[in-house]
Protein backbone atom coordinates (compact mmCIF):
# COMPACT_ATOMS: atom_id res chain seq x y z
CA UNK A 1 0.00 0.00 0.00
CA UNK A 2 1.40 3.37 -1.00
CA UNK A 3 1.95 5.81 1.82
CA UNK A 4 -1.13 7.85 2.56
CA UNK A 5 -3.19 5.62 0.29
CA UNK A 6 -6.97 5.87 0.61
CA UNK A 7 -7.28 2.17 -0.15
CA UNK A 8 -6.77 0.60 3.27
CA UNK A 9 -6.02 -3.09 3.76
CA UNK A 10 -9.64 -3.54 4.86
CA UNK A 11 -10.92 -1.92 1.68
CA UNK A 12 -8.59 -4.00 -0.46
CA UNK A 13 -10.14 -7.15 1.02
CA UNK A 14 -13.51 -6.12 -0.47
CA UNK A 15 -12.18 -6.29 -4.04
CA UNK A 16 -13.61 -9.34 -5.79
CA UNK A 17 -16.34 -9.84 -3.21
CA UNK A 18 -19.72 -10.79 -4.75
CA UNK A 19 -23.16 -10.68 -3.21
CA UNK A 20 -25.96 -13.20 -3.16
CA UNK A 21 -28.02 -13.04 -6.38
CA UNK A 22 -31.28 -11.08 -6.19
CA UNK A 23 -34.28 -12.42 -8.13
CA UNK A 24 -37.15 -10.10 -9.06
CA UNK A 25 -39.89 -9.54 -11.61
CA UNK A 26 -39.98 -6.56 -13.97
CA UNK A 27 -43.30 -4.76 -13.47
CA UNK A 28 -45.30 -3.05 -16.22
CA UNK A 29 -46.15 -0.02 -14.06
CA UNK A 30 -42.52 0.40 -13.00
CA UNK A 31 -41.50 0.67 -16.68
CA UNK A 32 -44.22 3.23 -17.39
CA UNK A 33 -43.32 5.37 -14.38
CA UNK A 34 -39.60 5.25 -15.17
CA UNK A 35 -40.16 6.26 -18.82
CA UNK A 36 -42.48 9.07 -17.68
CA UNK A 37 -39.79 10.31 -15.28
CA UNK A 38 -37.33 10.61 -18.20
CA UNK A 39 -39.98 12.35 -20.30
CA UNK A 40 -39.68 9.57 -22.90
CA UNK A 41 -43.02 9.01 -24.62
CA UNK A 42 -41.91 5.99 -26.71
CA UNK A 43 -45.06 3.79 -26.95
CA UNK A 44 -42.93 0.66 -26.44
CA UNK A 45 -42.58 1.81 -22.81
CA UNK A 46 -46.14 3.03 -22.25
CA UNK A 47 -48.76 1.54 -24.56
CA UNK A 48 -49.41 -2.12 -23.71
CA UNK A 49 -51.49 -2.74 -26.82
CA UNK A 50 -48.98 -1.11 -29.16
CA UNK A 51 -46.08 -2.98 -27.53
CA UNK A 52 -47.91 -6.31 -27.70
CA UNK A 53 -48.06 -5.93 -31.50
CA UNK A 54 -44.34 -5.03 -31.73
CA UNK A 55 -41.52 -7.54 -32.22
CA UNK A 56 -41.07 -7.53 -28.44
CA UNK A 57 -44.65 -8.62 -27.70
CA UNK A 58 -44.79 -6.66 -24.44
CA UNK A 59 -43.68 -3.38 -22.84
CA UNK A 60 -39.88 -3.19 -22.85
CA UNK A 61 -37.58 -1.27 -20.53
CA UNK A 62 -35.80 1.93 -21.58
CA UNK A 63 -32.03 1.30 -21.77
CA UNK A 64 -30.49 1.24 -18.33
CA UNK A 65 -33.71 0.33 -16.56
CA UNK A 66 -33.70 -3.24 -15.37
CA UNK A 67 -36.87 -3.17 -13.33
CA UNK A 68 -35.15 -1.77 -10.27
CA UNK A 69 -31.67 -0.58 -11.23
CA UNK A 70 -30.40 0.62 -7.88
CA UNK A 71 -31.13 -2.75 -6.37
CA UNK A 72 -29.52 -4.49 -9.30
CA UNK A 73 -26.31 -2.54 -9.55
CA UNK A 74 -25.26 -2.26 -5.93
CA UNK A 75 -28.07 -3.81 -3.93
CA UNK A 76 -26.86 -7.29 -4.81
CA UNK A 77 -23.53 -6.56 -3.19
CA UNK A 78 -22.97 -8.34 0.14
CA UNK A 79 -25.53 -7.18 2.64
CA UNK A 80 -27.28 -4.86 0.18
CA UNK A 81 -26.46 -1.31 -0.85
CA UNK A 82 -26.57 0.53 2.46
CA UNK A 83 -24.65 -2.15 4.33
CA UNK A 84 -22.05 -2.25 1.59
CA UNK A 85 -21.65 1.53 1.70
CA UNK A 86 -21.31 1.16 5.47
CA UNK A 87 -18.62 -1.47 4.94
CA UNK A 88 -16.74 0.89 2.60
CA UNK A 89 -16.97 3.68 5.20
CA UNK A 90 -15.98 1.36 8.07
CA UNK A 91 -12.99 0.16 6.09
CA UNK A 92 -11.84 3.77 5.83
CA UNK A 93 -13.24 4.98 2.50
CA UNK A 94 -13.85 8.75 2.27
CA UNK A 95 -17.48 9.54 3.09
CA UNK A 96 -18.30 11.85 0.19
CA UNK A 97 -19.72 9.84 -2.69
CA UNK A 98 -20.56 10.70 -6.27
CA UNK A 99 -21.76 8.57 -9.17
CA UNK A 100 -18.90 8.56 -11.66
CA UNK A 101 -20.55 6.85 -14.61
CA UNK A 102 -21.61 3.53 -16.03
CA UNK A 103 -21.20 1.28 -19.06
CA UNK A 104 -23.93 -1.05 -20.26
CA UNK A 105 -23.75 -3.94 -22.66
CA UNK A 106 -27.17 -5.08 -23.86
CA UNK A 107 -27.69 -8.63 -25.11
CA UNK A 108 -31.43 -9.37 -24.86
CA UNK A 109 -34.24 -6.82 -24.41
CA UNK A 110 -35.78 -6.77 -20.94
CA UNK A 111 -39.54 -6.40 -20.71
CA UNK A 112 -42.59 -6.52 -18.47
CA UNK A 113 -43.08 -9.84 -16.74
CA UNK A 114 -39.46 -10.97 -17.14
CA UNK A 115 -37.89 -12.49 -14.06
CA UNK A 116 -34.29 -11.38 -13.67
CA UNK A 117 -31.46 -12.59 -11.52
CA UNK A 118 -29.01 -9.81 -10.63
CA UNK A 119 -25.53 -10.46 -9.31
CA UNK A 120 -22.90 -7.86 -8.57
CA UNK A 121 -19.40 -7.61 -7.23
CA UNK A 122 -16.76 -5.10 -6.27
CA UNK A 123 -14.47 -5.29 -9.29
CA UNK A 124 -11.69 -2.85 -8.49
CA UNK A 125 -10.48 0.13 -6.48
CA UNK A 126 -8.06 2.75 -7.72
CA UNK A 127 -7.01 6.20 -6.56
CA UNK A 128 -5.53 9.38 -7.90
CA UNK A 129 -5.24 13.08 -7.22
CA UNK A 130 -8.13 15.09 -8.67
CA UNK A 131 -9.51 18.61 -8.28
CA UNK A 132 -11.28 17.25 -5.18
CA UNK A 133 -8.00 16.11 -3.61
CA UNK A 134 -7.16 12.46 -3.04
CA UNK A 135 -9.92 10.56 -4.75
CA UNK A 136 -10.82 6.89 -4.81
CA UNK A 137 -12.73 5.10 -7.55
CA UNK A 138 -14.69 1.93 -6.76
CA UNK A 139 -15.81 -0.13 -9.75
CA UNK A 140 -18.76 -2.51 -9.40
CA UNK A 141 -19.91 -5.00 -12.00
CA UNK A 142 -23.42 -6.36 -12.33
CA UNK A 143 -24.91 -9.09 -14.50
CA UNK A 144 -28.63 -9.53 -15.15
CA UNK A 145 -29.71 -12.96 -16.31
CA UNK A 146 -32.97 -14.47 -17.41
CA UNK A 147 -34.12 -17.53 -15.50
CA UNK A 148 -32.81 -19.80 -18.27
CA UNK A 149 -29.34 -18.42 -17.64
CA UNK A 150 -29.13 -16.19 -20.74
CA UNK A 151 -27.35 -12.93 -19.93
CA UNK A 152 -29.59 -9.97 -20.78
CA UNK A 153 -27.30 -7.18 -19.66
CA UNK A 154 -23.95 -6.42 -18.09
CA UNK A 155 -22.97 -3.16 -16.47
CA UNK A 156 -19.92 -1.63 -14.90
CA UNK A 157 -20.38 1.38 -12.64
CA UNK A 158 -17.89 3.75 -11.02
CA UNK A 159 -18.38 5.24 -7.58
CA UNK A 160 -16.22 8.25 -6.69
CA UNK A 161 -15.21 8.67 -3.02
CA UNK A 162 -13.40 11.79 -1.86
Amino acid at each position, binding site marked *: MAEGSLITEELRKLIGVSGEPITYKVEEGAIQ*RYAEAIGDLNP*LYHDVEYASKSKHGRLIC*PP*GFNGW*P*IKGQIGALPGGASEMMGAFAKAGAPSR*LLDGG*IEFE*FFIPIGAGDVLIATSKVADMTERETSMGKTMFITTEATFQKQNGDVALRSQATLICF
Partner: protein
Amino acid sequence: MAKQLCYEDVEVGIEVTPLTKIATTQMLVQWAGASGDRNPLHYDDDFVKSQGVGAPIVHGALKRAWLGQLVTDWIGEQGELRKLSCRYRGMDYPRKMKTMEEPQEGETWWCKGKVSKKYEDGGEHLVECEIWLENGKGEKTTTGAAVVTLPLRS
Protein backbone atom coordinates in the same frame (compact mmCIF):
# COMPACT_ATOMS: atom_id res chain seq x y z
CA MET B 1 -43.23 7.60 -35.35
CA ALA B 2 -40.46 9.17 -37.38
CA LYS B 3 -39.14 7.50 -40.52
CA GLN B 4 -36.89 4.50 -39.76
CA LEU B 5 -33.19 5.38 -39.92
CA CYS B 6 -31.17 2.98 -42.08
CA TYR B 7 -27.47 2.14 -42.26
CA GLU B 8 -27.20 3.81 -45.69
CA ASP B 9 -28.46 7.10 -44.21
CA VAL B 10 -25.53 7.34 -41.83
CA GLU B 11 -22.03 8.71 -42.52
CA VAL B 12 -19.16 9.32 -40.12
CA GLY B 13 -19.41 12.86 -38.76
CA ILE B 14 -23.17 13.32 -39.12
CA GLU B 15 -25.19 14.54 -36.18
CA VAL B 16 -27.53 12.45 -34.07
CA THR B 17 -30.87 14.32 -34.07
CA PRO B 18 -30.58 16.46 -30.90
CA LEU B 19 -33.03 16.36 -27.99
CA THR B 20 -33.72 19.13 -25.46
CA LYS B 21 -34.51 18.66 -21.78
CA ILE B 22 -35.22 20.93 -18.84
CA ALA B 23 -34.31 19.54 -15.42
CA THR B 24 -36.58 20.79 -12.63
CA THR B 25 -36.72 20.08 -8.91
CA GLN B 26 -40.11 18.45 -9.54
CA MET B 27 -38.55 16.14 -12.13
CA LEU B 28 -35.87 15.09 -9.66
CA VAL B 29 -38.54 14.05 -7.15
CA GLN B 30 -40.30 12.04 -9.83
CA TRP B 31 -37.01 10.47 -10.92
CA ALA B 32 -36.06 9.54 -7.34
CA GLY B 33 -39.35 7.69 -6.97
CA ALA B 34 -39.31 5.98 -10.34
CA SER B 35 -35.65 4.93 -10.26
CA GLY B 36 -35.43 4.09 -6.58
CA ASP B 37 -32.51 6.47 -5.99
CA ARG B 38 -33.22 8.15 -2.65
CA ASN B 39 -29.79 9.77 -2.26
CA PRO B 40 -30.37 13.07 -0.34
CA LEU B 41 -27.73 14.72 -2.55
CA HIS B 42 -30.64 15.44 -4.90
CA TYR B 43 -33.06 17.13 -2.49
CA ASP B 44 -31.64 17.93 0.98
CA ASP B 45 -29.81 21.29 1.25
CA ASP B 46 -28.02 20.49 4.53
CA PHE B 47 -26.83 17.08 3.35
CA VAL B 48 -25.73 18.62 0.04
CA LYS B 49 -23.57 21.18 1.91
CA SER B 50 -22.03 18.43 4.06
CA GLN B 51 -20.94 16.79 0.81
CA GLY B 52 -19.17 19.93 -0.37
CA VAL B 53 -21.69 20.56 -3.16
CA GLY B 54 -23.38 23.95 -3.60
CA ALA B 55 -26.98 22.90 -4.22
CA PRO B 56 -28.97 19.72 -4.97
CA ILE B 57 -27.76 18.27 -8.29
CA VAL B 58 -29.40 16.42 -11.15
CA HIS B 59 -29.00 12.63 -10.87
CA GLY B 60 -26.27 11.28 -13.13
CA ALA B 61 -28.54 8.38 -14.00
CA LEU B 62 -31.27 10.77 -15.21
CA LYS B 63 -28.78 12.44 -17.54
CA ARG B 64 -27.76 8.99 -18.73
CA ALA B 65 -31.41 8.08 -19.33
CA TRP B 66 -31.80 11.23 -21.45
CA LEU B 67 -28.80 10.17 -23.53
CA GLY B 68 -30.39 6.73 -23.87
CA GLN B 69 -33.52 8.41 -25.24
CA LEU B 70 -31.41 10.51 -27.63
CA VAL B 71 -30.06 7.30 -29.16
CA THR B 72 -33.23 5.18 -29.16
CA ASP B 73 -35.29 8.05 -30.68
CA TRP B 74 -32.67 8.33 -33.44
CA ILE B 75 -32.31 4.60 -34.30
CA GLY B 76 -36.05 3.88 -34.27
CA GLU B 77 -37.76 0.60 -33.51
CA GLN B 78 -35.71 -1.44 -35.97
CA GLY B 79 -32.39 -0.26 -34.61
CA GLU B 80 -30.89 -1.96 -31.59
CA LEU B 81 -28.82 -0.37 -28.86
CA ARG B 82 -25.90 -2.67 -27.99
CA LYS B 83 -23.71 -0.52 -25.76
CA LEU B 84 -24.20 2.70 -23.85
CA SER B 85 -21.67 4.37 -21.59
CA CYS B 86 -21.32 7.72 -19.90
CA ARG B 87 -19.21 9.67 -17.48
CA TYR B 88 -20.51 12.45 -15.30
CA ARG B 89 -17.99 15.25 -15.72
CA GLY B 90 -19.81 18.24 -14.31
CA MET B 91 -22.70 18.90 -11.98
CA ASP B 92 -26.04 20.17 -13.21
CA TYR B 93 -28.52 22.10 -11.09
CA PRO B 94 -32.27 21.80 -11.72
CA ARG B 95 -34.53 24.78 -12.32
CA LYS B 96 -36.80 25.54 -9.38
CA MET B 97 -40.57 25.57 -9.82
CA LYS B 98 -42.52 28.79 -10.41
CA THR B 99 -45.95 27.15 -10.15
CA MET B 100 -47.14 23.56 -9.57
CA GLU B 101 -46.65 22.92 -13.27
CA GLU B 102 -44.16 25.45 -14.57
CA PRO B 103 -40.44 25.86 -13.91
CA GLN B 104 -38.69 29.17 -13.40
CA GLU B 105 -36.74 30.69 -16.25
CA GLY B 106 -33.29 29.19 -16.61
CA GLU B 107 -31.14 26.62 -18.28
CA THR B 108 -32.12 24.24 -21.08
CA TRP B 109 -30.02 21.15 -21.68
CA TRP B 110 -29.19 19.62 -25.05
CA CYS B 111 -28.52 15.94 -25.67
CA LYS B 112 -26.32 15.67 -28.74
CA GLY B 113 -24.28 13.11 -30.63
CA LYS B 114 -22.08 12.51 -33.64
CA VAL B 115 -21.33 9.35 -35.63
CA SER B 116 -17.73 8.24 -35.09
CA LYS B 117 -17.63 4.93 -36.97
CA LYS B 118 -19.73 2.64 -39.18
CA TYR B 119 -18.88 -0.95 -40.08
CA GLU B 120 -20.16 -4.45 -40.76
CA ASP B 121 -19.47 -7.29 -38.41
CA GLY B 122 -20.89 -10.79 -38.51
CA GLY B 123 -23.63 -9.73 -40.94
CA GLU B 124 -24.69 -6.81 -38.74
CA HIS B 125 -24.51 -3.13 -39.61
CA LEU B 126 -23.04 -1.27 -36.69
CA VAL B 127 -22.71 2.43 -35.94
CA GLU B 128 -20.76 4.04 -33.12
CA CYS B 129 -21.56 7.49 -31.79
CA GLU B 130 -20.09 9.95 -29.37
CA ILE B 131 -22.90 11.34 -27.22
CA TRP B 132 -23.00 14.13 -24.70
CA LEU B 133 -25.15 16.47 -22.65
CA GLU B 134 -24.60 20.23 -22.87
CA ASN B 135 -25.74 22.62 -20.17
CA GLY B 136 -27.06 26.14 -20.83
CA LYS B 137 -23.51 27.48 -21.14
CA GLY B 138 -22.63 24.90 -23.80
CA GLU B 139 -20.42 22.91 -21.41
CA LYS B 140 -20.40 19.12 -21.78
CA THR B 141 -21.36 17.93 -18.30
CA THR B 142 -21.84 14.29 -19.32
CA THR B 143 -20.03 12.51 -22.13
CA GLY B 144 -20.42 9.01 -23.44
CA ALA B 145 -20.64 6.63 -26.35
CA ALA B 146 -23.16 4.29 -27.93
CA VAL B 147 -22.97 1.32 -30.28
CA VAL B 148 -26.10 0.51 -32.30
CA THR B 149 -27.19 -1.72 -35.15
CA LEU B 150 -29.28 -0.34 -38.00
CA PRO B 151 -31.31 -2.09 -40.68
CA LEU B 152 -30.40 -1.87 -44.37
CA ARG B 153 -32.71 0.06 -46.69
CA SER B 154 -32.63 -2.73 -49.22
